């Protein structure tokens, strides 16, 4: 977007902000995008956020496996340390690293250079040099550290619970004009998530089976009344109050989404071999979310929706491993790795793997110290980026020294992040086509960080 059109965007966004957000959403963005539409990109691109709710223990996700580096890790968490020989080696320039043994499918993607690791990333207001600076000064830090719901919101939207606009939603604001049906710019297969919301974008929340219509809303007779269906269609969106209006808006989007999507999705049914889940994943909640995302991506070109830029959200919960961590985390990471690898296979089969990038996020990392059979709330963590556009097979950011009382340990092995979520997000936003000058619209704090592009994606 040019400077002029950006100013125009802001002006009109402000003006439209006075309207009720949802019903006129398509109109708003179509209007704003009039200039941008002229420069509509030729290719299709999408990012998929996989959020691990409850806070994945990063210390047992990517682990030092050099003898000298593994030892302090193991000493710090008796009973929780993964045996050295079980770690799955991955190439890295700084240290010998290995993945959790449940991550074999991700190890393969990494070896194929289609996945990368971003080390020790987390929310920051400004860079903090080390734990001493963190303790000694009043350096600005994110509010409500270590609180699940707040840090989820901060990862997704840079503001604690109650946040109203996430960076996925802001990216969608800027790019929705490239889509014929802006309604489908931001889609969650995992329910409500502030990541995809903004003042102008309301995420479309789809079920894992596809769009759902209102039964018998066009029937010739409802309970024997020939006027029943018409009354049903009117009643589901009736009511003028604040909450009634909010509910009615969702109904309106639901009806429109079903009308546009059901025929399109029928062209790529679950039975299509390109998006069929193997028996082992058929009941996996995360894999099912990724299957509907794969189907939506597969039909992005359908005339009824015609999408060029999309932001998706999927999630898996129960990562809050205060106890029983070894068994629980293995199951969860196994699901993540298998689902992500399946998804990459589906993108390959659809011929879209270079155009779709999946990345992980989580509330925070966890303590290095054990509480017996689990870990407590931390801060920085390691994450994965996967897709054909990823400059894979590498670790980005700085992999921390895994031990107690290091420069990045702010207590009990809670990691002080060395890369900010802003930089992580900026790299993804740039790849999606957000202009450098527009990054502050998506990431208000990006000016505080040196590296708005971490380099893990090919332009």
């Amino acid at each position: 977007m040019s400077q002029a059109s950006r100013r125009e965007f802001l002006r009109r966004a402000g003006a439209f902000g006075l309207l009720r957000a949802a019903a006129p959403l398509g109109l708003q963005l179509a209007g704003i995008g009039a200039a941008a539409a002229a420069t509509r990109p030729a290719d299709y691109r999408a990012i998929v956020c996989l959020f691990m709710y409850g806070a994945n223990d990063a210390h047992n996700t990517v682990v030092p496996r050099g003898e000298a580096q593994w030892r302090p890790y193991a000493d710090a968490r008796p009973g929780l340390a993964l045996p050295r020989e079980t770690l799955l080696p991955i190439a890295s320039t700084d240290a010998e690293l290995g993945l959790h043994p449940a991550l074999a499918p991700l190890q393969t993607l990494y070896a194929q250079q289609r996945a990368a690791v971003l080390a020790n990333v987390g929310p920051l207001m400004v860079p903090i040099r080390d734990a001493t600076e963190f303790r000694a000064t009043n350096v600005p830090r994110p509010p409500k550290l270590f609180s699940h719901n707040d840090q989820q919101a901060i990862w997704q939207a840079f503001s604690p619970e109650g946040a109203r606009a996430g960076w996925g939603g802001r990216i969608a604001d800027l790019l929705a004009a490239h889509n014929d049906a802006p309604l489908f710019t931001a889609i969650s297969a995992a329910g409500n998530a502030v990541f995809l919301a903004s003042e102008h974008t309301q995420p479309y929340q789809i079920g894992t089976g596809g769009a759902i219509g209102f039964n018998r809303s066009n029937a010739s007779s409802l309970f024997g009344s020939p006027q029943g269906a018409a009354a049903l269609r009117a009643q589901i969106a009736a009511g003028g109050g604040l909450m009634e209006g909010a509910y009615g808006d969702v109904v309106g989007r639901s009806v429109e989404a079903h009308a546009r999507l059901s025929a399109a999705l029928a062209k790529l049914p679950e039975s299509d071999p390109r998006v069929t889940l193997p028996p082992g994943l058929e009941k996996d909640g995360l894999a099912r979310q990724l299957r509907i995302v794969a189907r939506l991506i597969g039909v992005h070109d359908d005339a009824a929706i015609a999408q060029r830029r999309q932001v998706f959200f999927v999630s898996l919960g129960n990562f809050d491993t205060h106890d029983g961590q070894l068994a629980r985390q293995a199951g969860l990471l196994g699901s993540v790795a298998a689902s992500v690898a399946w998804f990459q296979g589906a993108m390959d089969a659809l011929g879209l793997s270079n155009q779709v990038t999946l990345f992980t996020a989580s509330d925070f990392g966890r303590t290095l110290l054990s509480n017996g059979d689990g870990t407590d709330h931390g801060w920085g963590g390691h994450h994965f980026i996967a897709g054909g556009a990823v400059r894979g097979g590498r670790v980005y950011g700085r992999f921390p020294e895994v031990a107690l009382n290091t420069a990045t340990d702010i207590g009990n092995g809670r990691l002080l992040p060395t890369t900010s979520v802003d930089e992580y997000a900026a790299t993804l936003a740039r790849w999606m086509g957000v202009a450098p000058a527009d990054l502050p619209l998506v990431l208000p704090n990006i000016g505080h960080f040196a590296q708005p592009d971490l380099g893990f994606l090919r332009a």
Partner: protein
Amino acid sequence: MAPAGRLLSLLAAVLLAACATPGDAPPVSDPWAYPARAAEIRRPRSPEQPRYARPTPAEASRFLQQATFGATPQTLVALEKSGYARWLDAQFRTPQTLFLPAIEPAHAALETGKNLRQDLFFAEFWKASATAPDQLRQRVAFALSEIFVVSFDGSLSARVRGMASYWDMLGRNAFGDFRTFLEEVTRHPMMGTYLSHLKNRKEDPKSGRVPDENYAREILQLFTIGLHELNADGSAKLRDGQPIETYDLDDITGLAKVFTGFSYGGPGTTDAHFNRQSEEPRWDILPMKGYPKFHATSEKRFLGVVIAPQKTADPEGDLGIALDRLFRHPNVGPFFGRQLIQRLVTSNPSPAYVARVARAFDDNGAGVRGDMQAVLRAVLLDPEARTATPAGKLREPVLRLSQWMRAFGARSQSGEFLIASTDNPGNSLGQSPMRSPSVFNFFRPGFTPSGVAFGPRGLVAPELQLVSETSVAGYANFMQTTIEAGVGRAEGGQRDVQADYAPAAALADRPEALLDQVELLLMSQRLTPDARTRVLDAIRALPLPASGPGAERARRERVKLATLLVMVSPEYLVQK
């Protein structure tokens, strides 16, 4: 209170109460079990409360939408006669409907290695919500289950008996005192499992192990004081324009030490009893107790309290000190009170309303803090609760189904209300009781939908967090089927829970009267004139034979159509 003794002295109080009124309470035969009833509380003889004229039918319905699982024709009449205050008094006296005794036989009959199905709990829930006489208690238990959250989703998936016990504990304390409640929540093995303070061990400098901080954090953030210092009206206190945090990481670390050394209840005291649930077959329903050997003896600092290093570990004493400190914190009244208002009455209470409820929490009129009956009176009899609020609250999905059951006298063919999980948002309610996805409940008290209508005006809409393009259609379709064919497991071609539409069907030839009745039972206020016209036209278009075999059926169809057209409408879905 002397260490080691709070639980036992509570038990003693219950025993004394039982002695004072022989035959009134069952004797407590098991000193390790939860008490059978809440402890006695000093209460004012005639509580100070707003007086109201006898309610009109619409006003009575409005009250019953807030205080019960839905209005019925019978409870409407009863409330119109008694008035609110006497209705509350009667509910406070109504014996509790218990889930545990209904689950025990199935649990006892279980083969080793087998688990009960969650459906058993859901059936008890729906039976109680549809039919139990102690409606207020059950409704408040449901509200408490959304604040003091434990969930079948996760580590408790097989703990059906324990969850029934937790539910009964919520109900027992619904009219009790908050301090006892907080302790029973803390000690409950379901909470101990869910937030992992059960079997939590003291720190070990040798291995570097530290206490589990999970419960210490959530009891502060979610159950008692919240993140920010509050004024009595629930607004945040400010320093230099910024909210003041109530605790920091050091408070968590200090408080976490208090919650060490607690494990399985019952008489056993050995390390094996601490470590293994197999040592105590009723571990899932007995309150957790302290095991000194595993309890931290080092200094414990939190929220200005300092517990000196101990020669002899004192888990029970430390727990008492910590819970007393939290209970006495001035935040509890506005923090808890506001959430209770949100669960029962409105999403956006005025600060003055919150302050009135907080005042009732602080003092019930007889100098007692934390009297739940005083809090409930304040919540339900407040002028703001008794007049329509402009925004209201969205009815959560579980309550929509219970309201339908009660409005139309739904009966279970089996007598068991065999309704399984209602989780799926695409074809069901998108919500099952006690199956929140996390300790943060199905929805957050501060949830604000995106867009400009709410946030900039400082308004919240917690239940809207469950509303999506998928759930709105899923719910409407689910209600269509439910209204048409009933709900629950189908046996002999008929679903287990069936409405009795006959009373309403008697009005079928007078569409206006029929719609009046449906509106009264389900929503207390009226549809807007446009909507009314639309619904009436649709009803009239449904032909009603004067007699013959089709006549009765057509009458019922008119009721069903009216009910569906009301229940799918945002005008119904927002309770005002």
